[in-house]
């Protein structure tokens, strides 16, 4: 598969054009490592004036406003806004359960991660897309600048399912490895029998701006199953014997709704953003509409 094909499978040219106009927004202020295009409320060196303050001995004389001294006979220091870069992390759950759906949830997550990553690259943010469960020996690349789009797509392309590491474990690894603060987008189906709560809590410890995008396939939202079935869990081979009936289906839907609502509440209470989406919804719509409403992009 050539790079061009990858672009078209993951990001269509129309989408790219659309994404170029967007930028990633963080509600939290982070200290970037490098200068970027992003204004920070930290005072620093840039062309953008922020404020004056009284001179105290030891200040850099270069920033004294001499014009003001001439008029007022007092020393003032000119303060400028610092422009910084933003750390953007996209975490893709690549457990086996993500392979379901048409397109698969994994593919959908890749598209979404690519879209958001591209926005970050365009704005000179520090972008890191990481497949959860990848070993530490093969860390994901840190990307910056539009030119890194190809690298990003290459990396995304080689992500495959099969790393059935518990969510908690993989998130813990990520948090330990990546100390930078910024935006974290977790793309997962939250289908972890051990529970997703502890994993999400880990993300919070870094005081990151966390977005949980809950990806579900239409088959999960509205299963079309009939007959007496032996359901086999694709990850752990767990078996559930059911006889499909309308009440059971209703019960499943109620359980699913409760599950989604529980996750939403859990995230919202902890200051995280939560979004459920079906793989049937086009990525463009999610980025340009849903995530815009959520305030991740603008």
């Amino acid at each position, binding site marked *: 598969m050539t790079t061009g094909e990858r672009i078209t499978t993951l990001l269509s040219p129309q989408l790219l054009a659309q994404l170029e106009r967007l930028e990633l927004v963080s509600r939290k202020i982070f200290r970037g490592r490098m200068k970027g295009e992003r204004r920070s409320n930290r005072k620093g060196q840039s062309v953008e004036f922020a404020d004056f303050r009284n001179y105290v001995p030891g200040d850099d004389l270069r920033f004294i406003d001499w014009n003001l001294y001439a008029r007022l006979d007092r020393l003032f220091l000119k303060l400028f806004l610092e422009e910084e870069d933003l750390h953007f992390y996209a975490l893709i759950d690549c457990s*086996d*359960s*993500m392979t*379901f759906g048409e397109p698969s*949830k994994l593919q959908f997550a890749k598209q979404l991660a690519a879209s958001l990553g591209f926005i970050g690259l365009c704005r000179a943010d520090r972008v890191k897309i990481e497949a959860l469960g990848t070993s530490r020996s093969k860390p994901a690349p840190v990307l910056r600048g539009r030119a890194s789009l190809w690298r990003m797509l290459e990396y995304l392309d080689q992500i495959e399912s099969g790393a059935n590491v518990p969510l908690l474990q993989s998130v813990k690894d990520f948090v330990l490895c990546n100390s930078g603060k910024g935006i974290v987008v977790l793309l997962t*189906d939250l*289908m*972890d*029998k051990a529970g997703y709560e502890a994993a999400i809590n880990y993300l919070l410890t870094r005081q990151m701006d966390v977005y949980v995008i809950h990806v579900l*396939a239409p*088959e*999960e939202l509205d299963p079309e*199953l009939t*007959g*007496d*079935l*032996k*359901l*086999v*869990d*694709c*990850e752990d081979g*767990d*078996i*559930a*014997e*059911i*006889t*499909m*009936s*309308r*009440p*059971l289906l209703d*019960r*499943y839907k*109620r*359980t*699913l709704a409760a*599950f989604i609502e529980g996750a939403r509440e859990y995230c919202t209470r902890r200051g995280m953003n939560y979004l459920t989406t079906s793989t049937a919804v086009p990525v463009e719509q999610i980025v340009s509409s849903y995530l815009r409403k959520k305030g991740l992009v603008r």
Partner: protein
Amino acid sequence: MGSEFFLNSLLWWQWGILAAIPPAILLLYFLKLKRRPLEVPSTFLWMRAIEDLHVNSIWQRLRQNLLLFLQLLFIALLALALLRPGWQGTRLDGERFILLLDTSASMQATDVTENRLAAAKQDCLNLIDAMESGAVAMIISFSDVARVEQTFTDNKNILRAKVKAIESTNRLSDLEEALRAASGLANPGRSSNTEDKQDLQVAEAMPATLYIFSDGGFREIPNFALGNLEPKYVRAGSETPQNVAITSFSTSRNPDHPQKLQTFARIENFGTEKIECSASLYLNGTLLDAQQVSIPPREKQSAGASGVQFEMDDEDEGVLKLEIDVKDDFSLDNAAYTVLNIQRPARVLVVSPSMSKSMRLALSTDEATKVAQISYETPAFMESKGYQEGSSSGLYDLIMYDRCVPPAPPQANTLFIGRVPNFPDWTAKEQPAREKQGAPSIYNIDNVHPLTQLVDMPNVIIVDALDVTPPKGGMSLIDANIGSLLSITPRQSFEDAVLGFELVTTADDGTDKPTTDWSRRRSFPVFFMNALKYLGGVSLQANLSGVRPGEPYPIRTLVPVDRVRVKPPQGGRELEVLRETQQAITFTQTEDLGVYEVREGTGSQLSQQFAVNLFDARESDLLPAENIEIGHASVEKEVKQGRDAVRKELWKWIVMLGLGIVLLEWYIYNKRVYV
């Protein structure tokens, strides 16, 4: 075999096959439990969804195996149907039924559970239940009158309700009217001329089965043709009912001691054992006297009877009650009432051009003055206002017209002497010319009629007489060679007696000359006394115990009031009865036994009383008839009510239920309504 609840319809090996089916179904269920494996992203949510179902897993398992249970139930029902459960029932043949229910007094007898009417009603209800669907029935209740309770209908609910609503009466029984009502549809009328070859049935005959629920206590009906009716007699009552009855009770003056009253009663025993009992006589509720009576048992058809007689001082008025203290199956006839009323003298007007001495003598005997108040007038009085008012308002009980005729028929009984009345019946064209025909010779006198009772007229010379053969409806009391000498004809509620010869004739010189020697005979005052008593209504008042339940009672008032109020024996509201241009007011609501009080006009003064008694040996004789005679047919009692024994089976319903279960199973299988 027929009475068994189950009826095997399969051989043992067939049962074996049937028994193998449930295990086969179970086996198939176990084999069927092979679930299709399906890989899903996660069983996480599914596990949660079925989690609470595992809590009551037994019930869940039951629910999951609902189809299995339904199938097993179906097989069980099939097996039950093959056993053909059923019971011995009856079926009524026929499509049209007429149910005659006896409500006469004797049906109140308690020799069967509750009473005979209740038992008969139950029989009737059973019969209605046994009717095939589509069959129609009609209900007639009868005592001495018949009442159509329900016309033909196939609605069993209506029929049941109507039967249940039937109540007993104190009346006597007469089947004939009920039979006529019943035969109306079964035997459609024909033209009256049976000789006519053109005689056609006016409607199609509808044959029906006639069920008579009765104890058979009514007279034979010899002149009734059943035609298309097929009678069945369902007998009510037990074989050995016990009953002692007062069958007559009357009071009269002791001829030897006129100041004493005599009371007679006849007590009959319809049971099979000799009865010793005491008969107590009460006057206005106070015990006067009591006697011990011994009544022999019945012998075949005739009841054992005994009489009691009480002597008592003269009482002007009051209610006498006779009671016997026996416990039998029929209580209505254990008490009897009679009433002593003040005898009201009859008001009599004699209109005569010249009152003959003999006639005046005959009307002024002691006995006559006691029973009648007689006024004498000449024919000129008939022109006066006083006569017109008196004769039209019912002031007079009897008016005697001696050799004269009134301008219009009076509201009173009349006796015409030597003239034929000018009333419409008598002046009709077909009536013969009434002319004097010379001396008649009498050859017959009616000794039974109260007017000519004890009137003996041998060798009576009559100079000249008219033929007074009465118009239609009347009867001749004295027959002579020229025709009738004395006849009596009803007119509305009155009677007109006509004597065909003059007693005296007025000669040219104005003196009366006798034209008969009858006035010298003893029968002459007897005849006038009879006339006063019978036509003056005195005898009717003396008839103290003549009213039977349901019979109309003519109330003669002391003063000509337009209405009376009658208080029934059971108390309650007074009934107001209006006069209907008649001499007497007729009271018809005599259903209850006992003493009725009559008050005249609006006054509160008790003016008279009358008693209603059963006094009917046929009703008191409780022994139910073995058969009843209708026309030439003798209807035997039904042993099993003429119903065909038939086995009522349930298998059709069971199979239908089974099919319902199969349908339910199909629905559940398709809709998966269970979890």
